[in-house]
């Protein structure tokens, strides 16, 4: 019946059912979320606007019934649920967990990198003590390890099924799992028509939480954004994931459908200057730009007011360690011109401003506004749209874009985690080529440090202070994840991985 089938539209294509496989794209992570279980998960909390979000501070068991951290924090022991079974009826064992984790740290690429963020790097760290006991040994204790176990990469796969389909060339059964998930999660994949749709059907025997209310979920891929809007507005679909800010504002105003906008934790839309590019080596130039950016206009015309403003902060010495937090810049062309005049490029210069084609909905208006504003302080900006594939290469790998718009957001919600990726020389999202010994040292020190360590807060404050003063990355605003749903659709929860977790969703009978 229609009432227990939920129809979701997305604009992106799911290209694999296996998150560990290299080449699997971001939209495919939802399969890991919905069809597999992890050892741990987060609880949820209600936000000020009444919507629900996962709660970073509230770790909850998923496959693990309980867990135990050793005194030195370097041994983690998990007890698995007795009743947890894979879809084929086989009980979930510690061997499956070990096999799955081994797989994640061995296959390379993204899963390995993400596991490493939690200091999970080698198979030797994982041990299946017995069928129901699983142990992790860490080289050092880390506050990131447990949260990292909630990420979509830390899933537990039915190792027997997988091994049955493994071959010599493909010992980790990537070919098989790519098309055939083998999990214990709340939903199974009923069919997958590549480029068209993905259909989930409920796993009635799910052990790690309340069985889902919805029988089937159809994820339809609709590339045209306006078609997606028309569909949700006409009521032909229940849920539209990740809608543009403009639609969010307008749909909310129209009131026919529910719109939920959640600021994305640990995520910033930033204007990055590349320090390999000569003019940007001058801090004055970077600050001048930070004072020239029309934050307000960008927030209104590119973000349509969705998200959190990140300019006009009170002081250049941060008081809190909250991340992200507003930088003390706001548009002040006088100041900007003055700074330019003092800088080594008083006569201005020309620079291309690049952005990712796939992000054009916010990046393009933003870039246009920045182009215009920088023109006023003598920086001639030309715009450069970079197609998706190319973007990663030039922006993040080669790091060769002089001036560009970037939108990194860390899954693990701590400032040091963000700084690790975005401010430390050589790391992927440091597309500014920013190199600051002090920040690097501070990150090193704080990355694994517990947040209640007394040294933690001052270090973080110092980090932020440097970032404010040096501004290699100029924060524009903290974006929101916007979704729209029909009035009868409830139970939506925001997750840091920005995938739709269909497990708690319900459809009210009407």
């Amino acid at each position, binding site marked *: 019946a229609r009432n227990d089938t939920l129809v979701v539209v997305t604009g992106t294509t799911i290209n694999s059912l296996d998150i560990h496989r290299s080449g699997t794209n971001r939209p495919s992570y939802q399969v890991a979320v919905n069809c597999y279980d992890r050892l741990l998960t987060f609880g949820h909390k209600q936000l000020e606007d009444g919507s629900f979000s996962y709660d970073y501070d509230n770790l909850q068991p998923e496959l693990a019934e309980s867990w135990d951290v050793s005194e030195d924090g370097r041994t983690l022991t998990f007890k698995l649920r007795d009743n947890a079974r894979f879809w084929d009826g086989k009980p979930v064992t510690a061997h499956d967990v070990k096999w799955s984790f081994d797989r994640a740290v061995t296959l390379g690429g993204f899963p390995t990198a993400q596991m490493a963020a939690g200091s999970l790097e080698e198979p030797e760290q994982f041990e299946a003590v017995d069928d129901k006991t699983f142990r992790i040994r860490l080289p050092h204790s880390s506050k990131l390890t447990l949260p990292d176990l909630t990420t979509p990469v830390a899933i537990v796969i039915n190792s027997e099924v997988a091994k049955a389909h493994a071959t010599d060339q493909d010992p980790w059964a990537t070919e098989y799992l790519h098309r055939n998930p083998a999990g214990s999660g709340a939903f199974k994949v009923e069919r997958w028509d590549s480029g*068209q749709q993905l259909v989930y059907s409920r796993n009635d025997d799910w052990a790690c939480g309340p069985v889902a209310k919805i029988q089937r979920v159809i994820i339809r891929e609709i590339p045209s954004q306006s078609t997606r809007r028309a569909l949700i507005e006409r009521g032909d679909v229940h849920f539209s994931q990740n809608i543009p800010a403009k639609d969010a504002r307008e749909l909310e105003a129209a009131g026919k459908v529910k719109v939920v906008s959640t600021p994305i934790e640990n995520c910033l839309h930033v204007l990055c200057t590349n320090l390999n590019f000569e003019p940007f080596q001058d801090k004055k130039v970077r600050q001048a730009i930070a004072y020239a950016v029309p934050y307000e206009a960008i927030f209104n015309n590119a973000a349509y007011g969705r998200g959190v403003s990140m300019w006009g902060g009170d002081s250049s010495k941060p008081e809190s360690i909250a991340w992200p937090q507003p930088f003390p810049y706001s548009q002040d062309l006088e100041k900007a011109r003055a700074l330019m005049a003092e800088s080594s490029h008083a006569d201005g210069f020309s620079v291309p401003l690049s952005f990712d084609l796939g992000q054009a909905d916010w990046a393009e208006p933003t870039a246009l506004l920045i182009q215009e504003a920088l023109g006023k302080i003598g920086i001639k900006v030309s715009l450069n749209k970079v197609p998706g594939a190319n973007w990663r290469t030039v922006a993040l790998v080669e790091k060769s874009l002089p001036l560009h718009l970037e939108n990194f957001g860390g899954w693990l919600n701590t400032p040091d985690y963000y700084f690790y990726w975005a401010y430390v020389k050589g790391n992927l999202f440091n597309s500014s080529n920013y190199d600051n010994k002090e920040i690097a040292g501070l990150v090193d020190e704080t990355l694994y440090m517990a947040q209640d360590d007394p040294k933690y807060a001052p270090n973080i404050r110092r980090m932020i202070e440097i970032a404010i003063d040096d501004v290699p990355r100029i924060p524009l605003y903290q974006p929101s994840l916007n979704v729209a749903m029909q009035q009868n659709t409830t139970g939506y929860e925001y997750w840091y991985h920005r995938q739709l977790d269909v497990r708690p969703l319900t459809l009210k009978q009407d």
Partner: protein
Amino acid sequence: MVRVPKRLRLVGYRLLQAIPVLIGIVVVSFLLTRALPGDPAVYFAGPAASEESIEQIRVSMGLDRSLPVQFFAYVGDLLRGELGQSISTGQPVLTELTTRLPASLELTGFALLFSIAVAMPLGILAATRPNSWIDHLCRFVVTAGVSLPTFFTGLALVYLFYFLLGWSPAPMGRLDILYLSPPHVTGFYVIDALIDGDFETARAALAQLILPAVTLGLFTLAPIARMTRAAMLQVLEGDFIRTARAAGLSGHKVLYTYALRNAILPVITTLGMVFSFALGANVLVEKVFAWPGIGSYAVEALVVSDYAAVQGFVLSMALLFVILNLLIDVTYTLVDPRLGMED
């Protein structure tokens, strides 16, 4: 006695002619993909991949080898019928092509049917009344069709017929969510559903087809109508039309059996061109209507430098083109007895 082998030879000659074209296509598509910016290894490695894992993937994809080596490897794969795996969709290119090509063909075919059904009568009407206001009106109408970008027409039609009026089903691809796709026989949903005896699904599939097909069809009206008009005008001036009229044949017979059949040849040529043209325009229409066709696939593949997918797409298109030309030739020989008999 002489005729059949001569025509057969004509077809054979055509096939031979296709060989250099196919070779050309293979080379061009290979070079084109390698010229694309972006590094598939980087893309493939996914977010947060390290330098060495990218390098590892590059090696495993064979991208570290020199271009000629890559080319020969590619040709070798091709000869083994191996089209490779698409990195953007994670499916073997061959699978993608076999599921998506029918979708595109169904759409294009339907669009052309629509276009022919509208453009040919308009062309004939215009040709029988040259320079009258009807003629001008026809010209105006068909030109208007080709004056707007397809994606604009498509979105405008969606807005009007789906969003405002609600007459058209949701533009969500080939079939509404309520229906299951019919068992695969030809890959054309309407036909498959009919074969299955499932008229309800056939109707639903047809309903999904209408808007995109009209969008695409509008774009192809002009060349067909223009060619029909020109060819009809020329034929109608012919002496044999006068003979037929003088022999007292009815206007209908003169117009259709005598004039139109003669005028149809250049129209068929145009149709062939329009078909390949429409397959290109498909790219945009498919995007608007979430049509899981080969065109939208190609766009995505191109944007992410998905070599195998782009090459597979181009190759299948080239084959289609060759087949299409053969079909046209065969139609020609069926319609025109003179063919192959003189030079």
